[in-house]
């Protein structure tokens, strides 16, 4: 694994490896000294072509807890907005010796371009590209679900997948990179996914996705859901006639107080409510739902740092980047020592 670009091509073993590593990273967060020296001397660049303070500080915290040097490069107000191309930006970062580039971009596929071209020889982590994917968000969601699922089963979460877990994802699937990354990852981990959305906010071709599709949130809830994930709805979608009014949207597809009560009356006492944030309270999720004990919103944020530490660690520690300076004689016999005796 040299890059983390999407969950679509993430194997089960790599996905579980990231989740397991994140468990160890989470343990570090509970120590007195929350910092590890692991990535000392490595440079992680947060290359953000789109504003996202939440995601950026999560990656920044992750990199700093691993002692990496962090450079934040916001494309706004920089030479990029003056017409510098992605290629020139990438080559500039390469010349500065970036070991990993965390890229957030409004254009789908921009991280793939960085990874596929020879513009830069660094590990590329997709921090959200257009309406394509947001793999670390899906991983932190899966991490949150796995902890919940394992706790219910009374088994350790390390090594586990999500076989049998029923997950519903409701909202603007069409424009959601979070939904896409979740669908692929949850399939890989063995969960059963149902997408719930107005037909206008589902992509043409969704019938080929490894999930069920419903237009009816109540019917989906009644069938039983272990994790209910609400997606953010952009207000401007209303102007493009994706739905008539925000009121109608929230009545049909929002997780409101009635649906929160319905979980109790239906007897789903262990169903969690998830949201990738930032939330539109009163639109796709009611305040009571967002603040209820079922809500994992803050746990998701917390777990985001662990997942991103795991991703940085695994991408930057593998022996995939440099033709290693290791000879049998002198330079690093310690590597042999650990390998041979372990």
């Amino acid at each position, binding site marked *: 694994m040299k890059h983390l670009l999407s969950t679509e091509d993430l194997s089960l073993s790599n996905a579980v490896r990231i989740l397991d590593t994140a468990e160890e990273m989470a343990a570090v967060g509970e120590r007195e000294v929350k910092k590890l020296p692991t990535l000392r001397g490595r440079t992680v660049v947060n290359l953000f072509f789109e504003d996202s303070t939440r995601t950026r500080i999560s990656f920044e915290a992750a990199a700093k807890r691993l002692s990496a040097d962090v450079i934040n490069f916001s494309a706004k107000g920089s030479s990029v907005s003056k017409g510098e191309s992605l290629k020139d930006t990438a080559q500039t970062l390469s010349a500065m010796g970036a070991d990993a580039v965390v890229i957030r971009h409004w254009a*789908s596929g921009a991280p793939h371009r960085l990874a596929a071209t020879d513009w830069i020889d660094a590990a590329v982590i997709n921090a959200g590209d257009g309406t394509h994917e947001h793999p670390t968000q899906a991983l932190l969601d899966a991490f949150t679900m796995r902890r919940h699922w394992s706790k219910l089963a009374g088994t350790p979460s390390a090594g586990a997948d999500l076989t049998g877990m029923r997950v519903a994802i409701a909202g603007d699937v069409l424009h959601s990179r979070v939904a896409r990354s979740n669908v692929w990852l949850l399939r890989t981990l063995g969960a059963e996914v149902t997408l719930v959305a107005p037909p206008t906010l589902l*992509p043409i071709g969704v019938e080929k996705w490894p999930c069920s599709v419903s237009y009816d949130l109540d019917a989906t809830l009644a069938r039983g859901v272990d994790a209910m994930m609400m997606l953010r709805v952009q207000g401007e979608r209303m102007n493009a006639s994706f739905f008539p009014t925000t009121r109608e949207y929230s009545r049909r597809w929002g997780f409101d107080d009635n649906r929160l009560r319905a979980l109790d009356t239906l007897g789903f006492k262990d169903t969690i409510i998830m949201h990738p944030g930032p939330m539109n309270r009163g639109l796709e999720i009611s305040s009571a739902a967002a603040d209820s004990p079922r809500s994992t919103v803050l746990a998701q944020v917390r777990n985001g740092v662990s997942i991103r530490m795991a991703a940085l660690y695994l991408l930057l520690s593998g022996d995939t980047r440099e033709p290693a300076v290791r000879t049998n004689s002198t330079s690093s016999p310690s590597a042999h020592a650990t390998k041979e005796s372990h």
Partner: protein
Amino acid sequence: MASQQQDAGTGAYLIRGAAILGGAPEDLLIRDGIIAERGQDLSADGATVIEAAGLVALPGMVDIHTHLREPGREDAETVETGTRAAALGGYTAVHAMANSTPVADTAGVVEQVLTLGRTAGWVDVRPVGAVTVGLAGEQLAELGAMADSRARVRVFSDDGICVHDPVLMRRALEYVKAFDGVVAQHAQEPRLTAGAQMNEGEVSAVLGLTGWPAVAEESIIARDVLLAQHVGSRLHVCHVSTAGSVEIIRWAKSRGVNVTAEVTPHHLWLTDELARSYDPVYKVNPPLRTDADVQALRAALADGTIDVVGTDHAPHPSEHKECEWAQAAMGMTGLETALSVVQHTMIETGLMGWADFARVTSTAPAAIGRLTDQGRPLDAGEPANVTLVDPAARWTVDPSKMATMGRNSPFAGRELPGKVVAMFFKGHPTVLDGKLNTPYRWLPEQAQLPGTAAAGH
């Protein structure tokens, strides 16, 4: 180049043993710009002999859809480089699309393009006139003035942009009847394709790229064939890309509508699966579709529903492709690969023979453009516009070695069949041994070169 003065049209060449339209080997004697003789064992009689055993002789190819970029975007392509590419690709005539800067929407601009083409001398450059002023879709350009100009424009197109206003389209179709013109429509409903990046379907759903739905093309074609029928005019549909469009055109032709249709080489082969790479070299308008569409387009070209292959050769500077998909320009080069791609997709699949190839790449496009001296049979007395192809050759596409300035070939790295060995344009060998020879030299009064500069050529 000016020093390589050629005896334009006066040299004599004997093509010996070429399979004419893929048939039995025959000789062709070319002299004074025409095919002097066709038959067996012709006497060389002082002519330069070209041994053509194993080669196929075809009427010079005619591209109905080429972007030469000049004037305005000489960083992307010039008439000189684009027509060199055309000659190397087997063409003796290209229709230069109107979306230059300034737009070819006046007699002045189309005459300028005509002159540039004649100065270059590699192929016949036939300017296409814009339908509307500045391609803005608001007001008809001076179609009559362009038709009457020295460029004798017969094909009018806002290509790149759809003439989407139904009233304007109706008027254009009606108006061009006055001079036997044709409106070549870029069928793309603009509202259904706002921000569109690729074919809308299974792949776009996964990639999160805004979809370009087939219906946006099909709905315009359906409207336009009905309009063409209603006003009794001639319609040409550019770059048909969907199975549904094929159905509509087939239906229209069965109803007697005077419609012709074009398919690009890339739509005969490539699919939207290639977008998974996010490499903008596969970004084109209309977009690459599905394999079902590709198969329907091949069948339609073979059965005549689609009349011609047009390259939609669209060179772009590399910085317009070395970027994010959404930022990248749409378009692919095509002049130097069209013959090979059509051979691969249509001939080697058994769907067509070389005679059909000549129909879709030469006879039919010449007829659409009303070119009287192109797309003619390879018979005695006809203009000597001849393409000699080695169908057994195999070559690997390397954009850096092409004559076009565009490096955006979607076929880069692929091995293709068929190689142009020699080209005769008006009896002059513009290509020999697969390499550019010398351009044809129009007489100064024909070339209409400005001032005395003509003497230098």
